[in-house]
């Protein structure tokens, strides 16, 4: 198996790619850099970058929580992904996993706290935070790991099965081969955990991300808030860059489309599939129990139609617009050191309210670019925050493209634009769809930056839900959460269907010709 090859660049307009990189930089780093330009750095602000006392304690708590979520999510993700890989008939659960990715953490909080309350189980403190975050980020882990398993050479697995029992082939062949992907999964879940403060706030525990927010809320000093976020940026991006570095040395192939396992369910597979099913069913049932019936649900959906429209519209727009700059950065990073990913991923860790203020600074002028107060701002906020996710997702997919197909394309006598349109684009599209969906899922639940820039008269579902959540659960909140989950199911199902069709067209058809 040859090493990953990149898409040919000889006849590709490099200027277009660099324009995409410039857009990425402007949209993600521009707002924060403008804020930094406006304020001079002072010694007391820089001192905030070196946590001590309570802040150091909070940082370690956050790191410990992040590590626990990364470990739990990766292990659970592994169990679920193996089950889906070995049981192709359970395909529908893939779509369920995809759909649950669009439910923000506070929806899981409401669902699981209600479930625990029903059975009289204590649900508080760090264990509850760990549980909610792990459940919330599990879909990302499952999808990443499943993609990794499906690219493993089935011949290796079959060879293992010939010499050893099936479970040993799994433990000693498949899992080690998927280890780099597991590390990447852990890095992503760690990053998502340490930057989330919604769940710890709801469960009355302080974490470093919340302390950054509190510091900023107390003083309104952007410099201090940004300096305070530097340790988190370094830790989170270091984890992501290290995981990405592990992936760089690996050999990738497209999905083989065949299962190397014998048919028939296994206990471990049943556990994995049950876990996946419960992951979706418990929130649905728990929220439905709190909701006040179908008519109230329909009423809630109708009353929230403006919020639904804004949420879905801005998330979808951001998802689509993220592809160009995300692809440009992914292509540009193919042969660069892992540490440069720190620059790409840093926007993920910038405190959302700081990002929001930077956006106001950038877009509230008197020129033609005075977009503040318009519906463009929520889209810009989502791009500022989640463009790195698109770049990461597309970069991961680019490694999976069959180099033989690229070689075959080079032999074509067709014009460059035709090759790009009819060969490169179909190959890249499934990964692009996945990246776009991740941006959509994260964007639908975004809170901090959106709050700062939402145009008057408009409000996202996440702001409404979060506001009502602080008064405890209620039928109104449960209804809104169900609406959000339903929209996520619809979006996830649509994305999965499109990606699967394109994969079949891109993979199967070309395999027949190659």
């Amino acid at each position, binding site marked *: 198996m040859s090493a990953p090859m990149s898409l040919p660049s000889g006849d590709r307009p490099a200027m277009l790619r660099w324009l995409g990189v410039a857009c990425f930089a402007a949209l993600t780093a521009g707002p924060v850099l403008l804020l930094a330009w406006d304020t001079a750095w002072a010694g007391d602000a820089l001192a905030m970058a070196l946590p001590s006392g*309570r802040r150091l304690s909070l940082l370690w708590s956050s790191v410990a929580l992040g590590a626990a979520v990364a470990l739990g999510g990766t292990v659970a993700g592994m169990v679920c992904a193996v089950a889906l890989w070995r049981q192709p008939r359970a395909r529908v659960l893939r779509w369920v996993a995809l759909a649950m990715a669009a439910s923000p953490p506070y929806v899981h909080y409401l669902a699981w706290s209600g479930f625990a309350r029903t059975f009289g189980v204590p649900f508080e403190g760090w264990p509850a935070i760990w549980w909610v975050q792990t459940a919330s980020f599990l879909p990302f882990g499952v999808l990443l790991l499943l993609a990794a398993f499906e690219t493993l050479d089935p011949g290796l697995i079959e060879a293992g099965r010939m010499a050893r029992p099936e479970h040993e082939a799994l433990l000693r062949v498949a899992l080690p081969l998927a280890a780099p992907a597991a590390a990447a999964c852990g890095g992503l879940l760690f990053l998502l955990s340490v930057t989330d403060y919604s769940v710890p706030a709801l469960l009355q525990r302080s974490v470093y991300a919340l302390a950054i927010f509190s510091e900023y809320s*107390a003083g309104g000093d952007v410099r201090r808030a940004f300096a305070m976020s530097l340790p988190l940026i370094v830790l989170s991006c270091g984890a992501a860059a290290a995981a990405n570095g592990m992936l760089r040395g690996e050999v990738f192939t497209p999905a083989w489309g065949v299962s190397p396992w014998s048919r028939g369910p296994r206990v471990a597979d049943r556990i994995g599939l049950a876990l996946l099913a419960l992951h979706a069913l418990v929130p649905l049932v728990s929220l439905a129990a709190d909701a006040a019936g179908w008519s109230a649900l329909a009423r809630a959906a109708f009353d929230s139609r403006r919020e639904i429209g804004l949420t879905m519209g801005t998330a979808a727009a951001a998802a689509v617009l993220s592809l160009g700059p995300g692809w440009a950065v992914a292509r540009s990073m193919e042969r660069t050191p892992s540490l440069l990913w720190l620059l790409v991923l840093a926007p993920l860790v910038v405190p959302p309210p700081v990002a929001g203020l930077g956006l106001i600074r950038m877009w509230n002028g008197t020129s033609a670019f005075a977009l503040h107060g318009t519906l463009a701002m929520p889209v810009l906020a989502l791009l500022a925050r989640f463009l790195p996710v698109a770049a990461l997702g597309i970069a991961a997919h680019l490694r999976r493209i069959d180099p033989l197909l690229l070689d075959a394309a080079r032999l074509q006598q067709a014009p460059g634009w035709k090759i790009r349109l009819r060969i490169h684009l179909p190959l890249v599209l499934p990964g692009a769809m996945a990246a776009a969906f991740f941006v959509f899922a994260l964007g639908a639940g975004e*809170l901090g930056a959106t709050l700062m820039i939402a145009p*008057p*008269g408009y409000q996202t579902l996440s702001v409404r839900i*979060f506001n*009502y959540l602080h008064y405890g659960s209620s039928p109104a909140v449960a209804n809104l959460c169900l609406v959000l989950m339903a929209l996520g199911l619809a979006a996830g199902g649509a994305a999965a269907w499109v990606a699967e069709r394109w994969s079949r067209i891109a993979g199967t058809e070309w395999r027949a010709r190659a």
Partner: protein
Amino acid sequence: MPSVVVYASIDQVYSEPVLRDFERRTGVRVLPVYDVEAAKTTGLVNRLAAEKARPVADVFWNGEFAQTALLRNQGVLAPYRASGAASARTECSDPSGFWTCFGGRARVLLVNTRLADERVIPADVLRLGQGPVEAKLTALALPLFGTSFTHAAALYAALGDGPARSFYEGLAGSGVRVAEGNAAVRRLVEKGEAALGLTDSDDACASIASGAPVRAILADHGASGPLVIPNSVALIAGAPHPEQGKQFIDYLLSAEVEDRLIEAGWVQSSVRRDAAGCLGPGAGPMRPMQVDGAAVVGRMDRVRKELGGIFMK
């Protein structure tokens, strides 16, 4: 259709009905921007300051007045004296008319009756953490923003800088539970994770109304009564719709709207009538502490710096 943009740092459950009612009565379309509990008012305050060069908002309706005063200092507000203003509180309204105070919430001690007997708990805030409820079963919100911060600034103004700082240093050192906000304190007490909590009267009323095993005690300060923190409303300088903004301010300061906010449970102190009924019969007399608004505002920077050093290090 004429419109008005209102930035409301009031819990959406209380403010939204008022905005919709104004819209219905006047035909002026209201375009609201709400804060979230987690942003603790400063979300919108910072947004208003950031938009100063090209304002988007017409009116700012705040659940306290200290942050409104900060906006005045930054040149974000324009003076306007409302006509009528039946519910206006003159003691904390800006003398130049840059903001008007009205209504009010009181600082209260919320007691979980399954864990503590409210009859033996001293109502004096200055004895918080000293018994009979253990410090580790006592909760208060981080006094760096919102009404908790305004309360701290009022204590600095009333007691003097040294005694107030000592009070908070004692609290921090005693092991009291510091929560992220007043709503968090309420939840801790409701769930029994804390026996006693210092919070706002609207949180206490909501807790009592929900049937939780709690009682409220108006938190006095030695010889002084409870601190009442009024709402404030202000016109934004350079507002896109100043006439509609003034119309909304007049409406908000009317007796009728204040009555609605009292019935809804947002306001528990009024210059016009008794409004603390939702706290229950044993809450104590509502004889508000006399506070010099200018002195409170003047101490805010110092209070923030000192309390940040006590609670955030």
